[in-house]
């Protein structure tokens, strides 16, 4: 049975979370030098902020490059007129 997306996320968070906790919160028996621990501690927050910035930038870019189909709309209007005429000729009562 395949894992759901939620399941995958929970696994990922659990794995990374425990790795971070082990290294940054430093239970006795597993001590990294102090500077490393201090750097690791705020890492989750940094990653969240980085992801937030990435999201804003990506959505902003995609918004700016969202195509407007002027031609397709004009073409559709032409098709509509042609369709109405042709159907009327063939006996359609609108």
């Amino acid at each position, binding site marked *: 049975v*395949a894992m*759901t*997306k*939620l399941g995958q996320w929970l696994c990922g968070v659990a794995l990374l979370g425990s790795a971070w906790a082990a290294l940054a919160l430093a239970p006795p028996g597993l001590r990294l030098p102090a500077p490393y621990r201090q750097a690791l501690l705020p890492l989750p927050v940094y990653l969240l902020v980085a992801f937030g910035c990435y*999201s804003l930038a*990506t*959505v902003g870019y*995609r*918004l700016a490059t*969202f*195509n*407007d*189909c*002027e*031609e*397709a*709309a004009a073409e*559709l209007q032409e*098709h*509509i007129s042609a*369709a*109405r005429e*042709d*159907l009327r000729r*063939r*006996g*359609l*009562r*609108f």
Partner: protein
Amino acid sequence: MAADSGDKFSVLLPTYNERENLPLVVWLLVRTFRQSGNNFEIIIIDDGSPDGTQEIAEQLEKIYGSDKIIVREIISILFSSGTAYIHGMKHATGNFIVIMDADLSHHVSLYSIKQKEGNFDIVSGTRYKGNGGVYGWDLKRKLISRGANFITQVLLRPGASDLTGSFRLYRKEVLQKLMEKCVSKGYVFQMEMIVRARQLGYTIGEVPISFVDRVYGESKLGGNEIVSFLKGLLTLFATT
């Protein structure tokens, strides 16, 4: 372009109060298929529309022939595309099924070409890639669309750029298999189809489409729609 004599395209058109749009959609479909030389049929599944949609559909059947236009009526308490598709598929004689809203009909021939290109199981229209796009959308609507799509991509990683587009081509067996597995309602159902399709290993090709929506009438995108979209998305996130 010579058609592969084996292929036939069944277009499923669920309708509810589409009296104005239906003749135009059918006319465009007929014209596109005739130009590309493909064998086709159009199955109109009307959900007891009070505006005379069925009557117009029957007129179209007389004009184009009942081998090309098939009209069926279902009466359901809550109009659901899923019910319409199940019903429509019973009558489909083609080996490819095209599913689309009755208010948009561009590029049907592009789909058959794309399918041949990659021998895909599913071809899906996308507004977000290539020269796909929209017409007449204001900034707010575009932002909501892109934002919602971004969240969907992050949470579901669906392998398709546009999950809520209204235009798809399926191999008949693939559609039947997916309909068995999918449980959502409304447009979340469309999203679930693609996600399940990926899980089952089906190949998905994409074609840019121009979404000139609502030939007649207004499309609504209010707070309610957004909330129900998020609910549907989270449900899919937790269950697929």
